């Protein structure tokens, strides 16, 4: 393994470089000669790839602002010959009240309300476990840690059927009870998706946070212990604050993973406005109304806007988390 090994991807060595290169122009190591290895031909090729990679998204974006009849009859690249601009598509998919409207507003709320706890829960439990793995040394712990590491590549498909059975046996009565107690909370609530996402996030989050937490100098922990701090205090007052950069990276990755997920939602959300996220609604729209491009284009952008904002504003954390977590699922 030269500069980037799987276990190193998170936040040491290799990842430091990644961050630098994404954030800034080529690193200016002393004496590095700014000699271009590549020619004009290479620049042209790079330009072509960049354009090819951008055009599909760009076309969808342009189309989402075009009136329905123009989308259906003319290509988006003829926008100057067939001008037309409207916000109706967004108005319709987000706020439309007609029976046929996708009513994405409700699903947007679901996506958000699923993703926030499904980020907080696993990160809390994972950082606790990571602390235990890093600072409490017992023999069997090492084997257990390697086992947890192996679980992160494990296909989710292996867990879905039995987990759904467990939930319908043990969770359903509780959901029903809560609905009877507070009628505005639907029977099909977020709980199963929260728990499912929490479980599936743990192996990766534990591994990444452990890598970081075990790098905290041992003297810091020892000093606190000598001063009589309990493990609970050390964890909350020392370890968590020091691990904030790592937690931020993992949190962003996990948030987007949940936001972009379709499989877990399909199985645990029930598929209605009550709990289903945007991705599930969009996939359903493609299936049932795959020709209504005025809705699909605008709908797709409603779901893309959050990841794109995260991507462009938190690129550094995002890249670090994503690269570290790309084997998940």
């Amino acid at each position, binding site marked *: *393994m030269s*500069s*980037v*090994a*799987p276990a190193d*991807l998170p936040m040491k060595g*290799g990842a430091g*470089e990644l961050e630098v290169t*994404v954030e800034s*122009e080529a690193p200016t*190591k002393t004496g590095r000669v700014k*000699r271009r*290895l590549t020619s004009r031909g290479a620049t042209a090729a790079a330009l072509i*790839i960049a354009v090819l990679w*951008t*055009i599909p998204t760009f*076309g969808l974006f342009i189309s989402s602002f075009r009136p329905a009849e123009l989308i259906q*009859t003319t*290509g988006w*690249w003829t926008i100057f010959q067939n001008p037309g601009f409207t916000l109706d598509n967004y108005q319709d998919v987000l706020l439309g009240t007609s029976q046929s409207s996708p*009513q994405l*507003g409700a699903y947007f*709320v679901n996506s958000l309300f699923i993703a926030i*706890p499904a980020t907080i*829960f696993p990160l809390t439990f994972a950082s*606790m*476990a990571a602390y*235990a*793995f890093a600072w409490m040394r017992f023999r069997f712990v*090492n084997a257990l840690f390697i086992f*947890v*590491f192996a679980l992160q590549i*494990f296909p989710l*498909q*292996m867990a879905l*059927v039995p*987990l759904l059975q*467990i939930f319908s046996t043990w969770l359903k009565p509780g959901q029903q009870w809560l609905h009877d107690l507070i009628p505005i909370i*639907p029977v099909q609530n*977020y709980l199963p998706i929260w*728990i*499912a996402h929490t*479980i599936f996030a*743990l*192996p990766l989050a534990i591994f990444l946070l452990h890598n970081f937490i075990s790098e905290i100098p041992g003297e810091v922990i020892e000093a606190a212990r000598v001063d009589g701090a*309990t*493990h*609970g*205090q050390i*964890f909350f007052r020392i370890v968590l604050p020091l691990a904030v950069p790592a937690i931020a990276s993992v949190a962003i990755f996990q948030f987007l993973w949940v936001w*972009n997920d*379709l*499989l877990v939602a399909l199985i645990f959300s029930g598929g209605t406005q009550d709990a289903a996220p945007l991705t599930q609604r969009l*996939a359903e729209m*493609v299936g049932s109304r795959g020709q209504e491009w005025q809705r*699909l*284009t605008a709908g*797709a952008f409603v*779901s893309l806007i959050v*990841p794109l904002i995260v991507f462009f504003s938190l690129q550094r954390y995002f890249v670090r988390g994503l690269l570290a977590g790309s084997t998940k699922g």
Partner: protein
Amino acid sequence: MTTGDLLGKILQLVIGLAVFAVIVGLLIFFIDKAPKKGRDYWQLFLFLLPAMFLLALGLIYPAIRTTGLAFLDKSGNFSWDNFIWTFTQPAAIRTLINTIIWVLLVPTLSTALGLAYAVFIDRSRGERYYKALVFMPMAISFVGAGIIWRFVYEYKSAGREQIGLLNAFVVAFGGEPVQWMQTDPINTFLLIVVMIWIQTGFAMVVLSAAIKGIPTEQIEAAALDGTNAWQRFQNVTVPGIRGSLVVVLTTISIATLKVFDIVRTMTAGNFNTSVIANEMYTQAFRASEIGRGSALAVILLILVLPIVIYNVNVLRKQREIR
């Protein structure tokens, strides 16, 4: 969505977070109040408890049960039928073949494209903007990517103006428009294009970082020896980033084996485009063929297992060094 619905959802969020805070608070309380005797063991146990309990309940037990279900027929007796079905039914065989095509093409092509792009833009002006453009697809959902590309592949009958970019090109060059998503076998390759579109950015970012890690002296020495750019690429760059290439290839292979959303969104596995992960979902949750779905999940696990074992070995070596 009525105001009541929204209130209910907000209430759920608040209750959920509050209950969670109470659970964590209780745990910390018991951790600090752990009995003096064997205190470290108790505290370790409690720190690990929530995560290990959830993993046992939500991953390990289900995995064992899924393996069991794969060997049961509908009446609950042991049988190999589910696996026999997977390897004999034409549709199921096609699913396996498609998965193999995916896993051969996506990692190799994404890595090749990502590497080429990383080399081309290395130390060029505006490198970070070049990177952002190609990396952006990694941020969005596979469902969103599926919609973006369905629009590119959109078909209108001959004679009408094409609104999909691909058919517009075909028609501009005098061809007949094609129903891309319904045409076997080209539809599978067009779905693969979507995955390559997403994964190239990942390969590019990792490999670009690795390329920057190669000492400049090596490249300069090679240049002084009178080598051309291609020779330097072959003999200096590629050997220098071999480790990263392995990581990128295995990572994309895993992602490709598990690909579900793209197929689900774009064709739902119809027209001979299904892959294992999609077929697993269809069988277990749409057709109520739990046994067959479980067998497909087990096959998926077996396909991923070599990579898991390889990565575990790498990790163990690294931990021994420490």
